[in-house]
C-alpha cells in the first residue's frame, strides 16, 4: 500500500456534473494550488454527458486514475444522466480490462449527499483514499 | 421377405398394446441392445429405439433396430429430422424397410443444443409432419419428395409423437389432426402424470373423432425418485409433473421411492385402460428397462397376444 505522497504522485482526472458544485470555478483552486497539474478537473453539463471515449482519452493523455462524479441518484436534472453515466463507466471498464488496464483506474462516485458539496473537499477525499493502483503503464517511458 | 408389423397387428386386432423404449449405447457394442431386447421380449409388442436422443451421439437407431429384429423383436425405428436432410432421410427409410423394419416413428428431434454436440449444425431440412407425409407418400404412392417414382415402395407402420401437455393446449388437438392427415397411424404421447389434463385432451381428441383414425399409446415413465420427478418437471422440455405426484414421491422414504414410482405407473396404466380412445401404452423406462416386465405383469397386461 503506497503512502499518501506516492498517491499524490499519480495523475488524477475528475469529470464531474456541474450541479455538484455551483462554485466549482472558485472552489477548485484550493486543490489545484496544492496538487498542481497532478489533478485535472473537467466540469460537464451533466454526468450523462460522459462517454467511454472521454475516459479512454483521459487514460491515453496520462491519467492514472479517472473519477466520474455524479449527483445523487434520483437527483439528475435530466432524470437519468447519472444512471447512464454509470453504465458508460462500466462499459469503459470492460474495454479497459480487455486492453489490460485495471478497471479500478476509473471509478464512478455517485454522491450520496444532496448537491452543494465543494469540489475541493471531494477531490481531496478521493485523492487521499487508499488505492491499489500505481502509475499507469501508459505513463511509463517507451523502452 | 414380407413380414407385417407386430404392433400394427396387435392394434388392428383391438388389443391394448404395450410398447417400450430402448436407448442404444454410446458405443459400437451390440451387447447392451441384445440384453435390453432380451429383458423386454415377450412383455411388449414392439420396442422403440431412440435416434440420438437429446442430441447425444449413440449407436444408430437403424442398426439397433436390426439387432432387435434379429432377436425376434418387432422394432420401431425412431427417425429425427435434426441430423439428416431429405436425401439421407429418404434413403434411410428405404434401407430400413429393406432390412425388414416395419415401424417408424417420425420426430423432429431434441435440439442439438441439449446434447453433447452443441456446435452441430441443426439440419431441420424438413419437419416431423413433413417426414410423416414423406413416408406415407413413399409407401402409398411409391414416390419420393418431388414426385419421382420408387422401384419398390417401403413397408412401414407410421407413428408420430404427441405431447398433450404442451402449449398452446387448445392447438394440440389440431396439430394431432395435422399429423393424422399427414399419415400418422399410431401416436405415442409424452409421459403422462397429469391424468385430469390428459383426460381433457383425449376428450377433445374423441370429440374430433380422431381416436377412430389413429391408435393412441399413452406414454408411461416410471419415476425412480422424488428428485427425478422434480428434475423432469423443471428441466425436461415438454414434461409437466403435477405437484401432487411430486409430493406423493417425497412423502415416501428414499429407499421406497422406486416402488412408489412403479405404483404410480401402474395406476396410470389402469386409468388409461379405462379411457375411451386409448389403444395402448408406451413405456419409457429411461435406463431402467429391466422394470418393464414387472410393470406389464402388475398391470395385468401379461402375457402379450401372439398374432
Amino acid at each position, binding site marked *: 500500500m503506497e503512502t499518501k505522497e506516492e498517491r499524490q504522485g499519480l495523475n488524477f482526472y475528475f469529470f464531474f456534473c456541474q450541479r455538484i458544485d455551483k462554485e466549482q470555478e472558485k472552489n477548485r483552486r484550493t486543490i489545484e494550488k496544492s496538487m498542481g497539474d497532478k489533478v485535472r478537473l473537467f466540469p460537464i453539463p*451533466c454526468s450523462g454527458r460522459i462517454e467511454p471515449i472521454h475516459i479512454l482519452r483521459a487514460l491515453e493523455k496520462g491519467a492514472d486514475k479517472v473519477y466520474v462524479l455524479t449527483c445523487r441518484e434520483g437527483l439528475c*436534472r*435530466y*432524470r437519468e444522466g447519472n444512471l447512464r453515466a454509470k453504465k458508460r463507466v462500466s462499459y469503459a471498464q470492460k474495454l479497459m480490462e480487455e486492453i489490460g488496464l485495471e478497471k479500478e483506474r476509473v471509478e464512478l462516485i455517485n454522491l450520496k449527499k444532496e448537491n452543494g458539496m465543494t469540489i475541493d473537499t471531494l477531490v481531496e477525499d478521493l485523492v487521499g483514499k487508499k488505492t491499489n493502483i500505481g502509475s499507469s503503464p501508459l505513463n511509463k517511458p517507451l523502452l | 421377405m414380407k413380414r407385417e408389423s407386430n404392433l400394427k397387428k396387435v392394434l388392428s386386432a383391438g388389443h391394448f398394446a404395450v410398447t417400450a423404449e430402448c436407448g442404444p449405447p454410446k458405443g459400437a457394442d451390440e451387447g447392451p441392445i441384445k440384453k435390453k431386447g432380451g429383458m423386454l421380449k415377450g412383455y411388449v409388442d414392439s420396442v422403440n429405439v431412440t435416434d440420438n436422443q437429446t442430441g447425444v451421439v449413440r449407436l444408430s437407431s437403424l442398426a439397433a433396430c436390426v439387432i432387435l429384429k434379429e432377436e425376434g423383436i418387432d422394432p420401431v425405428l425412431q427417425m429425427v429430422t435434426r441430423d439428416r436432410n431429405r436425401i439421407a432421410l429418404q434413403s434411410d427409410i428405404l434401407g430400413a424397410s429393406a432390412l425388414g423394419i416395419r415401424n417408424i416413428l417420425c420426430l423432429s428431434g431434441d435440439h442439438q443444443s441439449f446434447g453433447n454436440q452443441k456446435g452441430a449444425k441443426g439440419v431441420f431440412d424438413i419437419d416431423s409432419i413433413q417426414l410423416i407425409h414423406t413416408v406415407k407418400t413413399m409407401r402409398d404412392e411409391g414416390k419420393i419428395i418431388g414426385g419421382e417414382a420408387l422401384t419398390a415402395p417401403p413397408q412401414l407402420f407410421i407413428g408420430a409423437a404427441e405431447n398433450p401437455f404442451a402449449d398452446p393446449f387448445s392447438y394440440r388437438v389440431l396439430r394431432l389432426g395435422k399429423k393424422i392427415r399427414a399419415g400418422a397411424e399410431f401416436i405415442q404421447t409424452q409421459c403422462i402424470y397429469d391424468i385430469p389434463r390428459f383426460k381433457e385432451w383425449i376428450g377433445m381428441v374423441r370429440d374430433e373423432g380422431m381416436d377412430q383414425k389413429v391408435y393412441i399409446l399413452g406414454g408411461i415413465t416410471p419415476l425412480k425418485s422424488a428428485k427425478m420427478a422434480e428434475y423432469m418437471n423443471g428441466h425436461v422440455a415438454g414434461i409437466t409433473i403435477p405437484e401432487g405426484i411430486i409430493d406423493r414421491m417425497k412423502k415416501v422414504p428414499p429407499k421406497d421411492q422406486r416402488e412408489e414410482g412403479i405404483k404410480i405407473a401402474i395406476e396410470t396404466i389402469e386409468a388409461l385402460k379405462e379411457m375411451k380412445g386409448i389403444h395402448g401404452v408406451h413405456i419409457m423406462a429411461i435406463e431402467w428397462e429391466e422394470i418393464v416386465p414387472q410393470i406389464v405383469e402388475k398391470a395385468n397386461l401379461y402375457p402379450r397376444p401372439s398374432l
Partner: protein
Amino acid sequence: MVCSEDSFVFPKVERARSRFKNALGKFKIIIDKRCNNCGLCIELCPFGVFKKGAKRPKPQNDHLCIGFVCRKNPYHCVDRCPKGAISLFVNPSFEILGDRRWTGDLLVSTWHMAETGSIPHQGLNYKTGDSRGGFDKLRFVFPEKLPEGTYNGEIDTAIELNRSNDGRPNVRIPIPLYLGGMSFGSVSITTMLSRVKAAAALGTFCCTGEGGYPEELIPYDDHVITQVATGLFGVREETIKRVRIVEFKYAQGAKPGLGGHLLGDKVTPRVARMREAVVGSALFSPFPFHSVYSVEDHKKHVDWIKEINPRALVSVKVSTPTDVDMVAVGSYYAGAHIVHLDGSYGGTGAAPDIAKKNIAMPIEYAIPKVHKFLIEEGIRDRITIIASGGIRTAYDMAKAIALGADGVCLGTADLVALECIRCHHCESGRGCARGIATTDPELSNLVELKWGTQRIINLYIAWREQLIDILRRLGMKSVTELVGRYDTLVHLDYVKKEEVRGEMED
C-alpha cells in the same frame, strides 16, 4: 373597403400545433418500460398531453402539462398510473430558452397562444419578462370593485388610424395593433405571406418593410402598408397606389441612425429583381434620407406620396432620440396621419449589438414623452401614435396604450408565433435554422403558409381576449379610453404595495 367596421367578424381559432415533433414546454414527461399501455393516462389528462402509442402512450404534448401543481388534481397521471411508469420533471432544456426580455416563460406562452388561441394554463408568466425595467416593472392597478353602472356590453377594441379630418378615408382596425415591416429578403416569402394573410384576417395591416412588394401580396393590398425607406428599394408608383397606408421609415429602433445592410448572399435573383439590384451584391440602405435635411424636406416627401395616392394615409416611422417629442410634432405638421415610434429594444432583423442596446431610448420612455408633448401642443387628437420596439405581450400592448399610444406595431411576437426561438443567429450559416428569416428554399419550406397564418391569428386573438379582460376590469368599454391613463399603472420602483388602492396585477 374590405373590412366593413361594424360587421367585422374575427377569424376562428384553429389548433395549430408546433411544427416540430417535440414542442418545447416547461415540463417533460417520460413513460418508462413499466408501462403496460393501459391507456389510463390518455383518458385522465384533460390537457391532451398523451397520445396513443403502439407500445405505450406518447407524452407528445407534454408542453401542455401544468406540471407539479397537478398533484392535487384527481386526474394527476403520475400518481394514478397503476404501474408508476410516468415521471414528470422540469424540462431541463428550458433553462437555456429565452433571454432577459423574452424569457423562456414568454416564449413558451406565446407558442401556447399561437397553438391554441387561448391563455396559457401551465403556470407560465405570460405577462412580463425579466428585463427588470420598463414594461417589466409596470403593473396595472384594477379597482377592487367595479364602479356601479359599469359598462356591461361588448368591449370595443377597435381604433381609428386617421384622426386628422383631412378628408382622407377613415381607417379603422378592429384591434389596436398592426404588424411591422420585415422586408422580403430578410424573411422568407412564407413568413411574409403568413403575416399579411393573418393581418388581413384580423382586419388590420402588415407592413412590407424595405425590400419591395412581392406580387403574392397583391390580393391583400387593402391590408398592406408599403414602406418607403432610405434605400427606396422596390418603391414604385404603382406600389404606392395600391395601398391604404404608406410608411416613411426614417429610422428603426433596433439600429437607430444606422442604415440597412443586406448581405450579398441573400440577394437572390428574386430579391434582386424586387429591389432592382444586382444578384449577389450587398445592398445598403443609407442613413438618413439623402433628400431630407429638414422638416420642410420631409413635408415634401409626404406631399409627394399624398399626391400619388390620394386615398392613402401616411405614417412616419421614427426612432426614439432625446428629442423624439419634437420629431413627432414635426411629423404632424408635415402632414402625417400616424407617427410610429420605434423604441430601441425591438427589431427583428440583424443589427449591430452596440446599436440595439445603447442607441436611442426604450419605447416606455418615448411614448409618454410624445403623448404629453402633443397634448401640450394641442394636437394629440389629430394624430395617431403607434408604438413599437419591445412589445412582447398583450400586457405590454395595454401598458403602451395606457402610457399614451393609440396602438402598437408588432414584429418579434409574430416571429415567435412562427416558433422563432430567439437564438439571435438570423444571419449565421444558411440563415435562420428554423426557416423563418431566411431565403434558403430548403429552410423556408419548414414553415407552411396555412399553419403560419393560423398561428399569428391565434396569437392575436388571445391577446385581444386579454386586452378585453384588462379593459373590463378597469371599467372601460373601449380601448380608446385607456390611452394615456397613467393612473391605471404603477411602477414597482415608485410604489409601495400596501399603498396601492385596488388590486395590483401580479
